[in-house]
């Protein structure tokens, strides 16, 4: 019987009007990898904030027993002192400082306030070796990718003599390869006796590395499962409180004539004029069709979509766009929208929503013409429209006056969808429509996509989750290094087949 390192007992945390956590229990054994699963808004992050002292002692009820003693953390530095380090989904690195400076930020290797640079670099080098990152410690954070930044965060945690490492959705923005490396690293840490808590939506990862899983639903701890009991279906059932027999709603495609055609599309990098990002891409979409673009991170899918949508990415763009057989001008976002093209971004917080404004204003902003005459907005027409789409997309909020920043990820994504549905496009490009949202909300989004297709919209889905693409599309393009390297009906596609076309293309390129 291994020792329990952390026990949280009867944790209850209320916000004005909302009970975020009620009587949550969690026990974590020394040296294990403990996963926490739950839908968005279930209370996972709140629980971790209670643990790390973001919510100081006294602002919640219940006990935290860590290493055999009851703890009363007043701030993050209290918990870090005890070796509890949390790595948030949004990385907390300073982009224009070097890797070494970031690792020792707030913990500088200094004597009497004067930084010892040799010590700093040596220390950083040692830590980077431990996390398997081959980068010069003097490299600026802004010059390395997200995957490597994550490793720097972990190195930083190690520098604080971490005993309990908490990772909040560490692989959400990582490529398949980087995710694998990160998970392997966690297994490596486990061998060295570091305990980890990992919050994740990716059930396949959890079943791969976790020893035990605690499921949280609606602010309550539902159950804790051991390795031998962990299956994806079991976790899903526990998370949503019901069995989800089919993760993808079924649909009978009713495909019509071609709606969107992009011909000979070429795009160059916005800063480096010589670097070609998209090469001779030709795609077409039909009415009522859901088409996917598969590919690895950095294969150019987002760049392609954004360059088509109002030249929002890149320079020296060449090629033609046809909507319903007519050649159209997509040189600005507003012209693209008027020509019936909409693009819902992969990064809803940065590019998709005005987080400080409410649902109503976010819903109508891409189509203010629809609720105004002579530039004057009809208040009630706008309210009708917002309520209508709130209902259609099943946004869970107190009203359309709820501020979008306070919604859960899934509901925010539904607001993004509402906005583009209200613009009434013929072609809807959805970039990672279910990134970072939970299983239940994913199902709802797939249902909306199906309804749209049934209404005769053409939908282009970009996704890094291959099962998702296989589950919801009719036809697939495979993209690699800015080229279309494969096209297949989804009925004939499989993950292996997609990977094979990517690998074959890589072989040809080199």
């Amino acid at each position: 019987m291994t020792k329990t390192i952390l026990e949280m007992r009867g944790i209850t945390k209320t916000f004005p009007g909302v009970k975020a956590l009620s009587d949550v229990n969690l026990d974590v054994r020394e040296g294990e990898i403990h996963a926490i699963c739950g839908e968005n808004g279930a209370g996972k992050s709140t629980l971790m904030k209670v643990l790390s002292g973001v919510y100081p002692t006294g602002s919640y009820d219940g006990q935290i027993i860590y290493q055999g003693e009851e703890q009363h953390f007043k701030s993050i530095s209290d918990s870090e002192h005890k070796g509890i380090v949390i790595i948030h989904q949004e990385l907390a690195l300073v982009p224009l400082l070097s890797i070494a400076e970031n690792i020792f930020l707030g913990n500088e290797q200094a004597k009497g306030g004067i930084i010892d640079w040799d010590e700093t670099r040596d220390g950083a080098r040692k830590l980077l070796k431990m996390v398997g990152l081959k980068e010069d410690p003097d490299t600026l954070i802004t010059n390395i990718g997200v995957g490597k930044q994550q490793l720097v965060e972990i190195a930083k945690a190690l520098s604080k003599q971490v005993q309990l490492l908490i990772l909040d959705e560490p692989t959400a923005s990582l490529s398949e390869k980087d995710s694998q490396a990160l998970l392997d690293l966690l297994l490596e840490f486990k061998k060295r006796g570091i305990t980890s808590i990992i919050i994740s939506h990716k059930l396949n990862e959890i079943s791969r590395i976790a020893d035990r899983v605690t499921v949280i639903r609606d602010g309550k701890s539902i159950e804790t499962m051991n390795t031998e009991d962990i299956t994806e279906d079991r976790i899903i059932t526990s998370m949503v409180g019901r069995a989800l027999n089919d993760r993808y709603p079924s649909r009978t495609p009713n495909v019509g004539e071609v709606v969107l055609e992009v011909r000979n599309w070429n795009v160059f990098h916005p800063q480096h004029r010589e670097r070609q990002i998209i090469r001779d891409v030709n795609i077409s979409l039909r009415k009522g069709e859901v088409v996917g673009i598969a590919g690895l991170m950095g294969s150019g899918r987002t760049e392609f979509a954004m360059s088509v949508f109002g030249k929002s990415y890149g320079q020296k763009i060449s090629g033609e766009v046809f909507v319903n057989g007519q050649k159209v001008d997509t040189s600005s976002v507003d012209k693209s929208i008027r020509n019936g093209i909409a693009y819902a971004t992969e990064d809803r917080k940065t590019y998709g929503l005005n987080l400080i404004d409410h649902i109503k204003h976010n819903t109508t902003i891409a189509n203010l013409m629809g609720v105004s005459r002579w530039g004057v907005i009809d208040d009630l027409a706008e309210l009708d429209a917002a309520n209508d789409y709130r209902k259609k997309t099943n946004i869970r909020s107190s009203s359309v006056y709820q501020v979008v920043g306070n919604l859960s990820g899934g509901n925010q994504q539904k607001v993004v969808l509402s906005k583009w549905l209200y613009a009434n496009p013929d072609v809807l490009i959805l970039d990672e429509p279910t990134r970072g949202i939970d299983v239940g909300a994913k199902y709802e989004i797939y249902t909306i996509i199906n309804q749209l297709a049934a209404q005769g919209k053409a939908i282009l889905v970009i996704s890094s989750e291959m099962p998702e693409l296989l589950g919801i599309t009719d036809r697939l393009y495979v993209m690699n290094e800015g080229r279309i390297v494969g096209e297949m009906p989804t009925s004939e596609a499989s993950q292996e087949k997609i990977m094979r076309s990517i690998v074959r293309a890589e072989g040809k390129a080199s």
Partner: protein
Amino acid sequence: MTTETAPTGTGSAAQPAQAHEMTLMGALRANMRDYGLLLALILIMLFFQYFTNGVLFKPVNLTNIILQNSYIIVMALGMLLVIVAGHIDLSVGSVSGFIGALAAMLMVGWNFPPELAFLAHPLVAGAICLVAGAAIGAAQGYIIAYHRVPAFIVTLAGMLIFKGLSLAILAGKSVGPFPAEFQMLSAGFIPDIVGPITMPWLAENGQNVVLHSTTMVIAILAIVGMVFFSIRGRGRRLARGYDVEPFSLFIIKNVVIAALVLFFAYMLASYRGLPNVLVVMGVLIAFFVFMTKRLTFGRRIYALGGNLKAAALSGIKTERTTFYIFAIMGALAALAGMIYAARLNSATPKAGQGLELDVIAAVFIGGASALGGVGQVAGAVIGAFIMGVMNNGMSIMGVNIDWQQMIKGVVLLAAVFFDLYNKNRSA
């Protein structure tokens, strides 16, 4: 933030049966910030009324407060747009000073040949000044919007440039006085077409109170209009099945506003009536409230201030919108410069200096966020009046200018601090 003063609605068009009133407390809480600011202004006024032994509410003094702060309020309207868009304009004080100087040179300083003499006509000169102001704003806006030079730097440069230019065209001297027609902009009052009414029963110390009755008529018309539109708006919301504020609050709100309007109108009417500049201000304030709440242009400003990238990807022409905002700011700075010059009846090289700070302070006291995306016209106007009443009250009390500055600084800090404190607590 919400730009609605109306309470939240959870009803939907499909189910009109759901229409109901919110609770009184709920509605109060939803609009707490708006009421709080107005309450603060009223409390400050009562405070000075007491400590100035009743001088503050004297008709002549209230009229003065309006005249003294008119140019700040005019510029605060434009600054609100600039700050909501996430920018700042440090040049407005210098630009207003420069335009005052330009107005003086056009009307008084330059001796035009006879064929160009029409340029000196106050209306023509005024129009030239407005266009010049808009052009200055547009030039700065062009650099900010299309070349992405931070507004702080562009307008800091503008501040220095126009400070220098006013000195240059005035050749370091004061120029005046202005033609009488131009002075009317600040010193004039609307004519009493209805005719004065003597109210012998209100006589004080043997002096009859003579009311400027046109002012009262205008006030009553304004109240009738306000009540009509709020009843109609409420009816339309109810008919479409949306929540409305409780009837009691609705009545209280209308009665309180009507009483305040009547009270101030009575005060003004018992002096010399509505100042011309208040009419200009009133029209501008009404238009800017309408612009920020109902025009698509206004909505786009909030959208781009809230999230510039998301606004651009929603089809908003962010550069063009920013450009227009600065052009509007420039035109308003020009108007303010003329009001200021007309009030002093001369243009001086020092005119307008430091005004930008009062204007920016008014907007922030009024609840705008330095990060952009948040702020209300009504807030900025009340913020300007809070500053104005404090200036006026402290001057009457004989508080030294050094203390006045310090107290104003503390009030600015406290206002923004409490705002953020409340926001954090409710978040």
